[in-house]
């Protein structure tokens, strides 16, 4: 079984191994998206005292796959007024950028596809490309509601990206690196030498909250889902879409949501480190099997529950409230914390006065 692989030239072996690595990340992400849509509907239903999907498969577990199959077999409608090429490229862009950001997320001490030095910068770059998919969809549809929605979505996404950018600077200052693995490891024993989380540090806690709220706005989740406000804009920028192109927006949106959950966990709550810095939490006791993957998935699940909870509880913001929160509250606050965090680091860690 292995012999044909070892007989390959190095280049090909590397290529095949990398492709396998990528599939090991991309396919579970897609599966996770399917299951997270189901989980979202179940949580939402439970909070509204409904049952949620419960017909397809045991407990309705196969609902997402049934939806996927149905959507796959539908007709792709391309409106006559639309720009055909752009119309079809837009969902491809959205879904592609939602997937590629996963390349630098560390899942345990050794499992990260590309352990690059500027991992966080790469994620920022990849997630800001998502705007193109949205605005292309709105433009190419050549229809009023998608157009309005796309403009709204673009303005909303870039507004909160500014806040996210400054929040990330606080984290990078604290960890001293853009490398995701270093950022995770820097959180080891962050508070009192026991708790592995930036989030419990009083200097960074406000930034953790700002980042959580901004990540909801960035992914257009309730209470910031003005881009698909159904009472005003039908279904938002995807109004003209049908079949799998429509589903790609859903998949991309949910892939972005779980990416944001992973980022929240990684940047502020210890990533794949266990919550407490105790040796028996790193490995299954008595073995060398690491628990890193378990902890990051657990934290992502907690964050997704918060996302879902917020969606089930809060009413939608108005557009002026949304912009006020982004520009007049989060931006000055995160700028202030860049000043505070860097000043604190200068005074205590880098160049203490009198040292």
């Amino acid at each position: 079984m292995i012999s044909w692989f070892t007989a390959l030239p190095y280049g090909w072996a590397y290529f095949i191994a990398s492709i396998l690595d990528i599939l090991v990340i991309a396919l579970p992400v897609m599966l996770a998206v399917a299951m997270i849509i189901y989980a979202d509907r179940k949580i939402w239903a439970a909070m509204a005292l409904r049952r949620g999907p419960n017909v397809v498969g045991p407990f309705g577990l196969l609902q997402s796959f049934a939806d996927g199959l149905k959507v796959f077999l539908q007709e792709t409608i391309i409106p006559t007024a639309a720009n055909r090429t752009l119309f079809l490229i837009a969902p491809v862009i959205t879904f592609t950028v939602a997937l590629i950001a996963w390349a630098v997320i560390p899942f345990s001490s050794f499992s990260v596809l590309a352990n690059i030095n500027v991992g966080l910068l790469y994620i920022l770059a990849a997630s800001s490309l998502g705007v193109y998919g949205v605005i292309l969809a709105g433009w190419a549809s050549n229809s009023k509601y998608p157009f309005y929605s796309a403009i709204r979505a673009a303005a909303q996404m870039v507004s909160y990206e500014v806040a996210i950018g400054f929040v990330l600077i606080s984290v990078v200052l604290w960890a001293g690196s853009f490398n995701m693995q270093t950022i995770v490891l820097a959180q080891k024993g962050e508070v009192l030498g026991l708790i592995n989380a930036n989030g419990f540090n009083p200097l960074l806690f406000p930034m953790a909250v700002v980042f959580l709220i901004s990540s909801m706005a960035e992914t257009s989740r309730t209470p910031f889902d003005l881009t698909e406000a159904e009472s005003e804009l039908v279904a938002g920028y995807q109004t003209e879409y049908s079949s799998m192109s429509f589903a790609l927006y859903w998949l991309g949106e949910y892939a972005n949501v779980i990416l944001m959950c992973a980022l929240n966990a990684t940047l502020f709550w210890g990533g794949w480190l266990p919550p407490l810095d105790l040796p028996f939490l790193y490995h299954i006791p008595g073995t060398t099997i690491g628990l890193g993957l378990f902890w990051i998935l657990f934290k992502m699940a907690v964050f997704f529950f918060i996302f879902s909870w917020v969606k089930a509880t809060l009413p939608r913001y108005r557009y002026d409230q949304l912009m006020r929160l982004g520009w007049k509250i989060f931006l000055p606050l995160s700028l202030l914390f860049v000043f505070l965090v860097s000043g604190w680091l200068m005074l205590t860690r880098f160049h203490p006065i009198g040292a």
Partner: protein
Amino acid sequence: MASVAAQYLPILLFLGVALLLSTAFVVLPIAVARLTGAHKPSTDKLSEYECGFPAFEDSRMQFDVRFYLVAILFIIFDLEAAFLYPWAVSLREIGWTGWLAMMGFLAELLLGFAYAWKKGALEWE
């Protein structure tokens, strides 16, 4: 140098795989719909969405200039953040001089921000 570039190779491959997957997701249903007979376009189906009447004007119309303002503000602040990134990782090396220089830069941008705020560029009534 080569080793640094090699770290990025998986990302390039990932981009290829992701593009391939999402293109397949767009193209395959179109092909399948033609095979199964689900592909039956008609004039009404292909017209753009409007609330019960044919669209009577171009949908790519004028939009509020404030969206444009937001885009410009975004460019300013994102550029500012881009300047801050290398500063943030090298703060230990550049010392108080570097820190003070960046704080001066931030203060100047804050002045611009306060001006935009006062002028009402951030108002959405």
